[in-house]
Protein backbone atom coordinates (compact mmCIF):
# COMPACT_ATOMS: atom_id res chain seq x y z
CA UNK A 1 0.00 0.00 0.00
CA UNK A 2 1.28 3.48 -0.64
CA UNK A 3 1.41 5.27 2.70
CA UNK A 4 -0.62 8.40 3.37
CA UNK A 5 2.00 10.91 2.10
CA UNK A 6 2.63 8.71 -0.92
CA UNK A 7 -1.06 8.78 -1.68
CA UNK A 8 -1.06 12.58 -1.51
CA UNK A 9 1.87 12.69 -3.92
CA UNK A 10 0.03 10.45 -6.35
CA UNK A 11 -3.03 12.67 -6.12
CA UNK A 12 -0.94 15.78 -6.73
CA UNK A 13 0.79 14.31 -9.72
CA UNK A 14 -2.46 13.15 -11.31
CA UNK A 15 -3.95 16.57 -10.73
CA UNK A 16 -0.86 18.22 -12.21
CA UNK A 17 -1.32 16.13 -15.35
CA UNK A 18 -5.01 16.96 -15.54
CA UNK A 19 -6.61 19.47 -13.23
CA UNK A 20 -9.58 18.35 -11.16
CA UNK A 21 -9.20 14.61 -11.62
CA UNK A 22 -8.67 13.59 -8.04
CA UNK A 23 -11.31 15.16 -5.85
CA UNK A 24 -10.24 13.65 -2.57
CA UNK A 25 -8.05 11.03 -1.04
CA UNK A 26 -8.98 8.62 1.71
CA UNK A 27 -6.74 6.47 3.80
CA UNK A 28 -8.51 4.00 6.02
CA UNK A 29 -7.67 0.57 7.38
CA UNK A 30 -4.26 0.81 5.69
CA UNK A 31 -5.92 1.09 2.33
CA UNK A 32 -5.29 3.98 -0.01
CA UNK A 33 -8.17 5.31 -2.02
CA UNK A 34 -8.35 8.00 -4.67
CA UNK A 35 -11.75 9.55 -5.19
CA UNK A 36 -11.91 10.79 -8.75
CA UNK A 37 -14.25 12.56 -11.09
CA UNK A 38 -16.06 9.96 -13.18
CA UNK A 39 -15.45 11.93 -16.37
CA UNK A 40 -11.70 11.72 -15.86
CA UNK A 41 -11.38 8.22 -14.52
CA UNK A 42 -9.76 6.82 -17.65
CA UNK A 43 -6.76 9.20 -17.69
CA UNK A 44 -6.28 8.57 -13.98
CA UNK A 45 -6.29 4.80 -14.45
CA UNK A 46 -3.96 5.09 -17.41
CA UNK A 47 -1.60 7.26 -15.40
CA UNK A 48 -1.55 4.76 -12.55
CA UNK A 49 -0.96 1.94 -14.96
CA UNK A 50 1.74 3.45 -17.16
CA UNK A 51 3.75 5.81 -14.97
CA UNK A 52 7.07 4.06 -14.34
CA UNK A 53 7.03 4.82 -10.62
CA UNK A 54 3.51 3.46 -10.17
CA UNK A 55 2.76 0.62 -12.59
CA UNK A 56 -0.47 -0.63 -11.11
CA UNK A 57 -0.87 -2.98 -14.01
CA UNK A 58 -3.31 -5.50 -12.60
CA UNK A 59 -6.98 -4.75 -12.11
CA UNK A 60 -8.07 -7.12 -9.36
CA UNK A 61 -11.68 -6.21 -9.31
CA UNK A 62 -14.25 -3.64 -10.21
CA UNK A 63 -17.40 -3.09 -8.24
CA UNK A 64 -20.27 -0.70 -8.32
CA UNK A 65 -22.09 0.49 -5.25
CA UNK A 66 -25.22 2.47 -4.58
CA UNK A 67 -25.01 4.92 -1.68
CA UNK A 68 -28.62 6.00 -1.60
CA UNK A 69 -29.52 8.42 0.00
CA UNK A 70 -25.96 9.75 -0.22
CA UNK A 71 -24.87 12.20 -2.86
CA UNK A 72 -23.52 11.50 -5.43
CA UNK A 73 -25.45 8.33 -5.42
CA UNK A 74 -23.30 5.80 -7.27
CA UNK A 75 -19.65 4.90 -7.30
CA UNK A 76 -17.52 2.54 -9.29
CA UNK A 77 -14.52 1.12 -7.47
CA UNK A 78 -11.40 -0.05 -9.26
CA UNK A 79 -9.06 -2.22 -7.21
CA UNK A 80 -5.62 -1.84 -8.73
CA UNK A 81 -2.64 -3.92 -7.81
CA UNK A 82 1.06 -3.62 -8.39
CA UNK A 83 2.26 -7.18 -8.27
CA UNK A 84 5.96 -6.39 -7.95
CA UNK A 85 5.62 -4.32 -4.82
CA UNK A 86 2.36 -6.02 -3.75
CA UNK A 87 0.63 -2.71 -3.33
CA UNK A 88 -3.03 -2.09 -3.74
CA UNK A 89 -4.72 1.18 -4.44
CA UNK A 90 -8.37 1.66 -5.05
CA UNK A 91 -9.89 4.29 -7.29
CA UNK A 92 -13.42 5.37 -6.60
CA UNK A 93 -15.27 7.17 -9.38
CA UNK A 94 -18.30 9.10 -8.17
CA UNK A 95 -21.41 9.13 -10.32
CA UNK A 96 -24.49 11.24 -9.84
CA UNK A 97 -27.94 9.82 -10.32
CA UNK A 98 -29.22 11.17 -13.61
CA UNK A 99 -32.90 10.55 -12.91
CA UNK A 100 -34.29 8.70 -15.91
CA UNK A 101 -30.99 8.90 -17.77
CA UNK A 102 -28.57 6.17 -16.77
CA UNK A 103 -25.27 7.28 -15.23
CA UNK A 104 -22.38 6.94 -17.65
CA UNK A 105 -18.63 6.75 -17.54
CA UNK A 106 -15.84 5.58 -19.80
CA UNK A 107 -15.09 1.92 -20.06
CA UNK A 108 -11.60 0.79 -19.14
CA UNK A 109 -11.69 -2.43 -21.17
CA UNK A 110 -9.03 -1.23 -23.57
CA UNK A 111 -6.47 -0.68 -20.83
CA UNK A 112 -7.67 -3.51 -18.57
CA UNK A 113 -9.26 -6.26 -20.68
CA UNK A 114 -10.32 -8.07 -17.52
CA UNK A 115 -12.89 -5.36 -16.86
CA UNK A 116 -15.11 -6.75 -19.60
CA UNK A 117 -17.26 -9.02 -17.42
CA UNK A 118 -17.02 -6.74 -14.40
CA UNK A 119 -18.42 -3.77 -16.29
CA UNK A 120 -21.20 -5.85 -17.74
CA UNK A 121 -22.06 -6.95 -14.23
CA UNK A 122 -22.11 -3.36 -12.97
CA UNK A 123 -24.37 -2.42 -15.87
CA UNK A 124 -26.60 -5.39 -15.23
CA UNK A 125 -27.21 -4.67 -11.57
CA UNK A 126 -26.89 -0.90 -11.26
CA UNK A 127 -27.64 0.43 -14.72
CA UNK A 128 -24.28 2.13 -14.99
CA UNK A 129 -23.38 2.49 -18.65
CA UNK A 130 -19.74 2.12 -19.62
CA UNK A 131 -19.09 4.13 -22.77
CA UNK A 132 -16.94 2.32 -25.29
CA UNK A 133 -17.49 -1.14 -23.86
CA UNK A 134 -17.48 -3.63 -26.76
CA UNK A 135 -20.51 -5.59 -25.59
CA UNK A 136 -22.65 -3.66 -23.14
CA UNK A 137 -25.32 -6.24 -22.39
CA UNK A 138 -26.70 -7.82 -19.28
CA UNK A 139 -24.62 -10.71 -18.08
CA UNK A 140 -26.30 -12.49 -15.17
CA UNK A 141 -29.92 -11.37 -15.42
CA UNK A 142 -32.05 -12.43 -18.40
CA UNK A 143 -31.60 -10.20 -21.43
CA UNK A 144 -35.20 -9.03 -21.40
CA UNK A 145 -35.17 -8.12 -17.72
CA UNK A 146 -36.42 -4.66 -16.79
CA UNK A 147 -34.91 -2.82 -13.84
CA UNK A 148 -31.61 -2.59 -11.99
CA UNK A 149 -31.93 -5.12 -9.22
CA UNK A 150 -29.05 -4.22 -6.91
CA UNK A 151 -29.92 -0.57 -6.58
CA UNK A 152 -30.93 0.24 -3.04
CA UNK A 153 -34.41 1.37 -4.06
CA UNK A 154 -35.13 -1.90 -5.84
CA UNK A 155 -37.18 -3.97 -3.41
CA UNK A 156 -36.17 -7.47 -2.46
CA UNK A 157 -38.63 -9.75 -4.13
CA UNK A 158 -39.08 -7.04 -6.75
CA UNK A 159 -41.03 -9.43 -8.86
CA UNK A 160 -44.29 -10.24 -7.09
CA UNK A 161 -45.06 -13.92 -6.98
CA UNK A 162 -48.71 -14.16 -7.85
CA UNK A 163 -50.83 -17.13 -7.00
CA UNK A 164 -54.14 -18.05 -8.52
CA UNK A 165 -55.89 -17.00 -5.32
CA UNK A 166 -54.66 -13.45 -6.05
CA UNK A 167 -56.42 -13.45 -9.40
CA UNK A 168 -59.34 -11.28 -8.19
CA UNK A 169 -56.92 -8.62 -6.91
CA UNK A 170 -54.74 -8.42 -9.98
CA UNK A 171 -56.72 -9.65 -12.96
CA UNK A 172 -54.72 -10.40 -16.04
CA UNK A 173 -51.38 -10.55 -14.20
CA UNK A 174 -50.14 -13.17 -16.61
CA UNK A 175 -50.25 -10.84 -19.59
Amino acid sequence: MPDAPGLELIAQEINAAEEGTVLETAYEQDRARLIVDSEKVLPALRWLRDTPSQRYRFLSSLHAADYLPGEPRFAVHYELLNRDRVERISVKALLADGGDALPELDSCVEIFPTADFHEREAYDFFGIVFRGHPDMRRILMPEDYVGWPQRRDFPVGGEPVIFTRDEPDSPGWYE
Partner: protein
Amino acid sequence: VSDRKPPETLPRDPRIEDPAMASLPKGPPAQELEPEQELMTINMGPHHPATHGVLRLVVTLQGENVLDVVPIVGYVHTGIEKSCEQHPYWKVIPFVERMDYLSYFFQMEAFCGNIERQVGLEIPDRAKYLRVMHMELNRLHSHLVWLGTSALDLGAISMFWYCFRERDKVLDLFEMSTGQRMHTRYFQVGGVIEDIPIGFERNLRKFIDQMPSRIDQYEALLDSNEIFLRRTKNVGIVPRERLLELGVTGPLLRAAGEPWDLRKATPYLAYPELEFSIPVGTVGDGYDRYRVRMQEMRESVRIIEQCLDGLPEGPFRADDRKYSLPPRDELSVSMEALIHHFKLVTEGFRVPPGELYYAIEGPRGELGCFIVADGSAKPVRVHYRDPSFVNLQAMCVGGYVADMVQNLAMLDPILGGIDR
Protein backbone atom coordinates in the same frame (compact mmCIF):
# COMPACT_ATOMS: atom_id res chain seq x y z
CA VAL B 1 -48.17 -65.62 -48.95
CA SER B 2 -46.92 -62.12 -48.92
CA ASP B 3 -48.10 -59.64 -51.44
CA ARG B 4 -45.12 -57.41 -50.96
CA LYS B 5 -43.27 -56.67 -54.14
CA PRO B 6 -39.64 -55.85 -54.40
CA PRO B 7 -39.08 -52.16 -55.04
CA GLU B 8 -38.85 -51.35 -58.70
CA THR B 9 -35.66 -49.36 -58.35
CA LEU B 10 -33.16 -50.18 -55.71
CA PRO B 11 -31.70 -47.26 -53.80
CA ARG B 12 -28.57 -46.15 -55.53
CA ASP B 13 -25.28 -46.44 -53.86
CA PRO B 14 -23.71 -43.01 -54.24
CA ARG B 15 -20.28 -44.53 -54.31
CA ILE B 16 -20.96 -46.19 -57.63
CA GLU B 17 -20.55 -43.64 -60.32
CA ASP B 18 -23.37 -43.45 -62.76
CA PRO B 19 -21.89 -44.29 -66.18
CA ALA B 20 -24.46 -42.01 -67.73
CA MET B 21 -23.08 -39.06 -65.82
CA ALA B 22 -19.47 -39.80 -66.59
CA SER B 23 -19.87 -38.73 -70.20
CA LEU B 24 -21.21 -35.30 -69.26
CA PRO B 25 -18.71 -32.44 -69.31
CA LYS B 26 -17.46 -31.49 -65.85
CA GLY B 27 -18.27 -27.96 -64.79
CA PRO B 28 -15.85 -25.59 -63.15
CA PRO B 29 -15.14 -26.31 -59.48
CA ALA B 30 -17.93 -25.13 -57.27
CA GLN B 31 -17.52 -21.64 -55.87
CA GLU B 32 -19.24 -22.51 -52.62
CA LEU B 33 -17.12 -23.31 -49.64
CA GLU B 34 -16.31 -26.88 -48.95
CA PRO B 35 -18.31 -28.25 -46.05
CA GLU B 36 -15.18 -28.19 -43.91
CA GLN B 37 -14.75 -24.46 -44.43
CA GLU B 38 -18.27 -23.41 -43.67
CA LEU B 39 -18.83 -21.73 -40.36
CA MET B 40 -21.30 -23.33 -38.07
CA THR B 41 -22.59 -21.94 -34.81
CA ILE B 42 -23.65 -24.51 -32.30
CA ASN B 43 -24.91 -24.30 -28.80
CA MET B 44 -23.33 -26.26 -26.00
CA GLY B 45 -25.15 -26.38 -22.73
CA PRO B 46 -26.57 -25.10 -20.46
CA HIS B 47 -27.32 -28.69 -19.48
CA HIS B 48 -24.22 -30.33 -20.80
CA PRO B 49 -22.38 -32.74 -18.55
CA ALA B 50 -19.00 -31.36 -19.59
CA THR B 51 -19.71 -27.76 -18.65
CA HIS B 52 -19.40 -28.44 -14.89
CA GLY B 53 -22.59 -26.62 -14.09
CA VAL B 54 -25.18 -24.60 -15.90
CA LEU B 55 -22.92 -22.90 -18.38
CA ARG B 56 -23.90 -22.25 -21.97
CA LEU B 57 -21.31 -21.86 -24.67
CA VAL B 58 -22.09 -20.53 -28.13
CA VAL B 59 -19.37 -22.03 -30.24
CA THR B 60 -18.45 -21.06 -33.78
CA LEU B 61 -16.96 -23.99 -35.61
CA GLN B 62 -15.19 -24.39 -38.88
CA GLY B 63 -15.29 -28.07 -39.44
CA GLU B 64 -13.90 -29.46 -36.23
CA ASN B 65 -11.97 -26.30 -35.33
CA VAL B 66 -13.26 -23.91 -32.72
CA LEU B 67 -13.06 -20.34 -34.00
CA ASP B 68 -14.92 -18.56 -31.24
CA VAL B 69 -16.45 -19.34 -27.88
CA VAL B 70 -18.91 -17.04 -26.20
CA PRO B 71 -19.82 -18.06 -22.65
CA ILE B 72 -23.33 -17.22 -21.52
CA VAL B 73 -23.79 -17.28 -17.77
CA GLY B 74 -26.46 -16.37 -15.27
CA TYR B 75 -28.57 -19.52 -15.20
CA VAL B 76 -28.04 -20.05 -11.49
CA HIS B 77 -28.06 -16.40 -10.47
CA THR B 78 -29.79 -16.27 -7.12
CA GLY B 79 -29.23 -12.69 -6.06
CA ILE B 80 -27.11 -13.62 -3.06
CA GLU B 81 -25.42 -10.22 -2.97
CA LYS B 82 -28.78 -8.50 -2.83
CA SER B 83 -30.02 -10.84 -0.12
CA CYS B 84 -26.93 -10.07 1.96
CA GLU B 85 -28.03 -6.46 2.23
CA GLN B 86 -31.15 -7.49 4.12
CA HIS B 87 -29.48 -9.36 6.94
CA PRO B 88 -27.25 -8.54 9.90
CA TYR B 89 -23.60 -9.27 9.29
CA TRP B 90 -23.54 -12.51 11.21
CA LYS B 91 -26.49 -13.86 9.23
CA VAL B 92 -24.77 -13.02 5.94
CA ILE B 93 -22.13 -15.73 6.44
CA PRO B 94 -24.40 -18.64 5.41
CA PHE B 95 -25.37 -16.71 2.29
CA VAL B 96 -21.90 -15.99 1.04
CA GLU B 97 -20.62 -19.52 1.57
CA ARG B 98 -23.26 -20.78 -0.84
CA MET B 99 -21.89 -18.84 -3.79
CA ASP B 100 -19.04 -21.07 -4.85
CA TYR B 101 -20.22 -24.35 -3.42
CA LEU B 102 -16.76 -25.93 -3.46
CA SER B 103 -14.89 -23.27 -1.53
CA TYR B 104 -17.20 -22.31 1.31
CA PHE B 105 -14.45 -21.87 3.90
CA PHE B 106 -12.75 -19.39 1.61
CA GLN B 107 -15.86 -17.29 1.11
CA MET B 108 -16.37 -17.24 4.85
CA GLU B 109 -12.79 -16.13 5.42
CA ALA B 110 -13.10 -13.41 2.78
CA PHE B 111 -16.21 -12.11 4.49
CA CYS B 112 -15.18 -12.50 8.13
CA GLY B 113 -11.65 -11.27 7.46
CA ASN B 114 -13.05 -8.20 5.76
CA ILE B 115 -15.29 -7.37 8.72
CA GLU B 116 -12.48 -8.02 11.18
CA ARG B 117 -10.29 -5.57 9.33
CA GLN B 118 -13.05 -2.99 9.14
CA VAL B 119 -13.71 -3.10 12.89
CA GLY B 120 -10.07 -3.68 13.83
CA LEU B 121 -10.58 -7.03 15.51
CA GLU B 122 -7.58 -9.25 16.05
CA ILE B 123 -8.40 -12.94 16.17
CA PRO B 124 -6.56 -15.37 18.46
CA ASP B 125 -3.76 -17.56 17.15
CA ARG B 126 -5.65 -20.77 17.62
CA ALA B 127 -8.48 -19.45 15.46
CA LYS B 128 -5.98 -18.50 12.75
CA TYR B 129 -4.57 -22.01 12.72
CA LEU B 130 -7.98 -23.62 12.76
CA ARG B 131 -9.06 -21.45 9.87
CA VAL B 132 -6.00 -22.28 7.82
CA MET B 133 -6.43 -25.97 8.56
CA HIS B 134 -10.01 -25.98 7.35
CA MET B 135 -9.26 -23.82 4.34
CA GLU B 136 -6.51 -26.15 3.20
CA LEU B 137 -8.79 -29.15 3.70
CA ASN B 138 -11.29 -27.27 1.61
CA ARG B 139 -8.66 -26.69 -1.07
CA LEU B 140 -8.02 -30.42 -1.14
CA HIS B 141 -11.73 -31.06 -1.43
CA SER B 142 -12.12 -28.56 -4.24
CA HIS B 143 -9.14 -29.90 -6.18
CA LEU B 144 -10.35 -33.46 -5.72
CA VAL B 145 -13.72 -32.61 -7.23
CA TRP B 146 -11.94 -30.82 -10.04
CA LEU B 147 -9.63 -33.76 -10.70
CA GLY B 148 -12.42 -36.31 -10.64
CA THR B 149 -14.75 -34.44 -12.94
CA SER B 150 -12.02 -33.29 -15.31
CA ALA B 151 -10.63 -36.77 -15.70
CA LEU B 152 -14.18 -37.92 -16.27
CA ASP B 153 -14.47 -35.44 -19.13
CA LEU B 154 -11.40 -36.99 -20.66
CA GLY B 155 -12.83 -40.47 -20.34
CA ALA B 156 -11.08 -41.66 -17.20
CA ILE B 157 -14.14 -42.67 -15.25
CA SER B 158 -12.39 -44.55 -12.45
CA MET B 159 -10.59 -41.35 -11.41
CA PHE B 160 -13.94 -39.94 -10.50
CA TRP B 161 -14.62 -42.73 -8.01
CA TYR B 162 -11.17 -42.54 -6.47
CA CYS B 163 -11.28 -38.78 -6.05
CA PHE B 164 -14.73 -38.80 -4.57
CA ARG B 165 -13.65 -41.48 -2.12
CA GLU B 166 -11.03 -39.09 -0.70
CA ARG B 167 -13.37 -36.14 -0.94
CA ASP B 168 -15.82 -38.01 1.24
CA LYS B 169 -13.16 -38.38 3.88
CA VAL B 170 -12.64 -34.62 3.85
CA LEU B 171 -16.36 -34.12 4.22
CA ASP B 172 -16.39 -36.57 7.12
CA LEU B 173 -13.74 -34.45 8.80
CA PHE B 174 -15.79 -31.32 8.21
CA GLU B 175 -18.78 -33.06 9.69
CA MET B 176 -16.80 -33.99 12.74
CA SER B 177 -15.40 -30.55 13.46
CA THR B 178 -18.24 -28.31 12.30
CA GLY B 179 -21.36 -30.43 12.26
CA GLN B 180 -21.97 -30.04 8.55
CA ARG B 181 -20.47 -31.68 5.50
CA MET B 182 -20.90 -28.69 3.24
CA HIS B 183 -21.74 -25.04 3.95
CA THR B 184 -20.53 -25.33 7.48
CA ARG B 185 -20.75 -21.75 8.76
CA TYR B 186 -17.72 -22.58 10.86
CA PHE B 187 -15.96 -19.23 10.74
CA GLN B 188 -17.47 -16.26 12.42
CA VAL B 189 -16.36 -12.72 12.99
CA GLY B 190 -13.75 -13.00 15.73
CA GLY B 191 -12.66 -16.59 15.23
CA VAL B 192 -14.40 -19.89 14.75
CA ILE B 193 -17.65 -21.09 16.19
CA GLU B 194 -16.31 -24.10 18.07
CA ASP B 195 -13.06 -25.76 18.92
CA ILE B 196 -12.20 -29.01 17.19
CA PRO B 197 -13.59 -32.03 19.06
CA ILE B 198 -11.64 -34.78 20.76
CA GLY B 199 -10.58 -37.35 18.22
CA PHE B 200 -10.50 -34.90 15.34
CA GLU B 201 -6.74 -34.69 15.43
CA ARG B 202 -6.41 -38.47 15.25
CA ASN B 203 -8.75 -38.69 12.28
CA LEU B 204 -7.09 -35.80 10.50
CA ARG B 205 -3.63 -37.25 11.02
CA LYS B 206 -4.82 -40.55 9.64
CA PHE B 207 -6.14 -38.73 6.61
CA ILE B 208 -3.02 -36.69 5.93
CA ASP B 209 -0.82 -39.75 6.37
CA GLN B 210 -2.86 -41.47 3.72
CA MET B 211 -3.35 -38.60 1.32
CA PRO B 212 0.15 -38.34 -0.24
CA SER B 213 0.02 -41.97 -1.27
CA ARG B 214 -3.43 -41.40 -2.74
CA ILE B 215 -2.07 -38.52 -4.80
CA ASP B 216 0.69 -40.86 -5.95
CA GLN B 217 -1.99 -43.27 -7.07
CA TYR B 218 -3.84 -40.60 -9.05
CA GLU B 219 -0.66 -39.58 -10.74
CA ALA B 220 0.23 -43.18 -11.49
CA LEU B 221 -3.14 -43.55 -13.14
CA LEU B 222 -2.98 -40.38 -15.19
CA ASP B 223 0.69 -39.65 -15.84
CA SER B 224 1.23 -42.83 -17.78
CA ASN B 225 -2.10 -42.67 -19.56
CA GLU B 226 -1.45 -42.08 -23.23
CA ILE B 227 -4.91 -40.63 -23.88
CA PHE B 228 -4.68 -38.20 -20.97
CA LEU B 229 -1.21 -37.04 -21.96
CA ARG B 230 -2.06 -36.53 -25.60
CA ARG B 231 -5.19 -34.65 -24.79
CA THR B 232 -3.62 -32.28 -22.28
CA LYS B 233 -0.04 -31.68 -23.39
CA ASN B 234 0.36 -28.54 -25.49
CA VAL B 235 -3.37 -28.03 -25.62
CA GLY B 236 -5.12 -24.91 -24.42
CA ILE B 237 -2.15 -22.61 -24.00
CA VAL B 238 -2.91 -18.98 -23.26
CA PRO B 239 0.22 -16.79 -23.04
CA ARG B 240 1.15 -15.51 -19.62
CA GLU B 241 0.85 -11.84 -20.60
CA ARG B 242 -2.64 -12.43 -21.91
CA LEU B 243 -3.64 -14.20 -18.70
CA LEU B 244 -2.43 -11.24 -16.67
CA GLU B 245 -4.31 -8.80 -18.87
CA LEU B 246 -7.45 -10.84 -18.39
CA GLY B 247 -7.01 -10.80 -14.64
CA VAL B 248 -6.58 -14.56 -14.34
CA THR B 249 -5.15 -15.74 -11.04
CA GLY B 250 -4.67 -18.98 -9.19
CA PRO B 251 -3.45 -22.29 -10.60
CA LEU B 252 -4.08 -21.13 -14.17
CA LEU B 253 -1.64 -18.26 -13.83
CA ARG B 254 0.87 -20.31 -11.90
CA ALA B 255 0.76 -23.03 -14.55
CA ALA B 256 1.85 -20.42 -17.07
CA GLY B 257 4.97 -19.74 -15.02
CA GLU B 258 3.97 -16.82 -12.84
CA PRO B 259 4.62 -17.54 -9.15
CA TRP B 260 1.78 -15.41 -7.86
CA ASP B 261 0.02 -16.61 -4.74
CA LEU B 262 -1.70 -14.29 -2.28
CA ARG B 263 -0.84 -16.65 0.57
CA LYS B 264 2.77 -15.65 0.06
CA ALA B 265 2.34 -12.18 -1.40
CA THR B 266 -0.04 -10.70 1.15
CA PRO B 267 0.32 -12.84 4.25
CA TYR B 268 -2.88 -13.33 6.16
CA LEU B 269 -3.94 -15.61 9.01
CA ALA B 270 -1.22 -18.10 9.95
CA TYR B 271 0.32 -18.45 6.51
CA PRO B 272 3.47 -16.41 7.28
CA GLU B 273 4.38 -18.93 9.99
CA LEU B 274 3.90 -21.97 7.80
CA GLU B 275 6.30 -23.43 5.35
CA PHE B 276 5.06 -24.29 1.91
CA SER B 277 6.06 -23.67 -1.66
CA ILE B 278 4.21 -22.44 -4.71
CA PRO B 279 4.19 -24.91 -7.58
CA VAL B 280 4.73 -23.28 -10.95
CA GLY B 281 4.32 -24.64 -14.47
CA THR B 282 6.21 -23.73 -17.60
CA VAL B 283 4.01 -23.42 -20.67
CA GLY B 284 0.51 -23.29 -19.21
CA ASP B 285 -1.12 -26.09 -21.17
CA GLY B 286 -3.71 -28.40 -19.69
CA TYR B 287 -1.02 -30.73 -18.42
CA ASP B 288 0.75 -27.96 -16.52
CA ARG B 289 -2.52 -26.93 -14.95
CA TYR B 290 -3.07 -30.49 -13.86
CA ARG B 291 0.46 -30.78 -12.46
CA VAL B 292 0.20 -27.51 -10.58
CA ARG B 293 -3.03 -28.53 -8.90
CA MET B 294 -1.66 -31.95 -7.99
CA GLN B 295 1.36 -30.34 -6.39
CA GLU B 296 -0.87 -27.85 -4.61
CA MET B 297 -2.68 -30.77 -3.01
CA ARG B 298 0.62 -32.04 -1.66
CA GLU B 299 1.42 -28.57 -0.35
CA SER B 300 -1.98 -28.40 1.31
CA VAL B 301 -1.26 -31.66 3.09
CA ARG B 302 2.02 -30.18 4.27
CA ILE B 303 0.28 -27.07 5.56
CA ILE B 304 -2.34 -29.09 7.41
CA GLU B 305 0.34 -31.18 9.05
CA GLN B 306 2.17 -28.07 10.23
CA CYS B 307 -1.09 -26.62 11.52
CA LEU B 308 -1.70 -29.73 13.57
CA ASP B 309 1.83 -29.77 14.93
CA GLY B 310 1.90 -26.09 15.76
CA LEU B 311 -1.70 -25.61 16.83
CA PRO B 312 -1.46 -23.11 19.69
CA GLU B 313 -3.45 -23.51 22.86
CA GLY B 314 -5.77 -20.76 23.93
CA PRO B 315 -9.11 -19.28 23.00
CA PHE B 316 -10.58 -20.01 19.59
CA ARG B 317 -12.53 -16.79 19.33
CA ALA B 318 -11.80 -13.20 20.17
CA ASP B 319 -12.70 -11.93 23.59
CA ASP B 320 -14.38 -8.80 22.27
CA ARG B 321 -17.98 -9.23 23.43
CA LYS B 322 -19.21 -6.54 21.09
CA TYR B 323 -18.48 -8.75 18.10
CA SER B 324 -18.20 -12.37 19.14
CA LEU B 325 -20.61 -14.43 21.18
CA PRO B 326 -19.78 -15.00 24.86
CA PRO B 327 -18.98 -18.57 25.91
CA ARG B 328 -22.06 -20.64 26.48
CA ASP B 329 -21.32 -21.43 30.13
CA GLU B 330 -21.18 -17.76 31.06
CA LEU B 331 -24.78 -17.17 30.08
CA SER B 332 -26.14 -18.75 33.23
CA VAL B 333 -23.89 -16.86 35.63
CA SER B 334 -23.26 -13.47 34.05
CA MET B 335 -25.96 -10.94 33.32
CA GLU B 336 -23.60 -9.02 31.09
CA ALA B 337 -22.86 -12.05 28.99
CA LEU B 338 -26.57 -12.64 28.62
CA ILE B 339 -27.14 -9.08 27.46
CA HIS B 340 -24.31 -9.31 24.97
CA HIS B 341 -25.59 -12.59 23.69
CA PHE B 342 -29.08 -11.16 23.32
CA LYS B 343 -27.88 -8.04 21.51
CA LEU B 344 -25.60 -9.98 19.17
CA VAL B 345 -28.27 -12.48 18.23
CA THR B 346 -31.22 -10.14 17.86
CA GLU B 347 -29.67 -7.02 16.42
CA GLY B 348 -26.18 -8.07 15.44
CA PHE B 349 -23.09 -5.96 15.79
CA ARG B 350 -22.59 -2.68 14.01
CA VAL B 351 -19.73 -1.91 11.68
CA PRO B 352 -18.50 1.69 11.46
CA PRO B 353 -18.88 3.42 8.07
CA GLY B 354 -16.24 2.38 5.61
CA GLU B 355 -15.55 0.25 2.61
CA LEU B 356 -12.89 -2.35 2.13
CA TYR B 357 -11.72 -4.88 -0.41
CA TYR B 358 -10.07 -7.94 1.08
CA ALA B 359 -8.67 -10.69 -1.09
CA ILE B 360 -7.44 -14.16 -0.27
CA GLU B 361 -6.17 -17.04 -2.34
CA GLY B 362 -9.01 -19.42 -3.08
CA PRO B 363 -8.65 -22.73 -4.86
CA ARG B 364 -9.30 -21.00 -8.18
CA GLY B 365 -7.48 -17.74 -7.65
CA GLU B 366 -7.98 -14.39 -6.03
CA LEU B 367 -11.20 -14.45 -4.06
CA GLY B 368 -12.04 -10.94 -3.00
CA CYS B 369 -14.82 -9.54 -0.90
CA PHE B 370 -15.84 -5.92 -1.01
CA ILE B 371 -18.11 -4.63 1.73
CA VAL B 372 -19.56 -1.18 2.16
CA ALA B 373 -20.67 -0.49 5.72
CA ASP B 374 -22.72 2.50 6.81
CA GLY B 375 -22.61 2.13 10.59
CA SER B 376 -25.69 -0.03 10.88
CA ALA B 377 -25.93 -3.73 11.56
CA LYS B 378 -26.49 -4.61 7.91
CA PRO B 379 -24.07 -4.21 5.03
CA VAL B 380 -24.87 -1.70 2.30
CA ARG B 381 -23.13 -3.69 -0.37
CA VAL B 382 -21.45 -7.05 -0.47
CA HIS B 383 -19.63 -7.90 -3.65
CA TYR B 384 -17.53 -10.93 -4.37
CA ARG B 385 -14.77 -10.97 -6.91
CA ASP B 386 -15.15 -14.58 -7.82
CA PRO B 387 -12.11 -16.13 -9.50
CA SER B 388 -14.19 -18.36 -11.77
CA PHE B 389 -16.10 -15.35 -13.07
CA VAL B 390 -12.90 -13.62 -14.13
CA ASN B 391 -11.08 -16.74 -15.28
CA LEU B 392 -13.91 -17.64 -17.61
CA GLN B 393 -12.84 -14.77 -19.83
CA ALA B 394 -9.66 -16.67 -20.58
CA MET B 395 -11.40 -19.53 -22.37
CA CYS B 396 -8.90 -20.64 -24.93
CA VAL B 397 -10.06 -20.28 -28.50
CA GLY B 398 -8.75 -22.61 -31.15
CA GLY B 399 -8.16 -26.30 -31.31
CA TYR B 400 -10.76 -28.97 -31.74
CA VAL B 401 -14.15 -29.32 -30.12
CA ALA B 402 -12.84 -32.08 -27.91
CA ASP B 403 -10.02 -29.78 -26.80
CA MET B 404 -12.55 -27.19 -25.80
CA VAL B 405 -14.03 -29.65 -23.33
CA GLN B 406 -10.56 -30.30 -21.96
CA ASN B 407 -9.89 -26.57 -21.78
CA LEU B 408 -13.02 -25.89 -19.85
CA ALA B 409 -12.28 -28.74 -17.48
CA MET B 410 -8.80 -27.41 -16.76
CA LEU B 411 -10.21 -23.93 -16.24
CA ASP B 412 -12.24 -25.33 -13.33
CA PRO B 413 -15.17 -22.92 -13.37
CA ILE B 414 -17.76 -23.21 -10.62
CA LEU B 415 -20.99 -21.80 -11.90
CA GLY B 416 -22.41 -21.12 -8.48
CA GLY B 417 -19.54 -18.72 -7.95
CA ILE B 418 -19.83 -17.16 -11.39
CA ASP B 419 -23.53 -16.46 -11.14
CA ARG B 420 -23.79 -15.81 -7.41
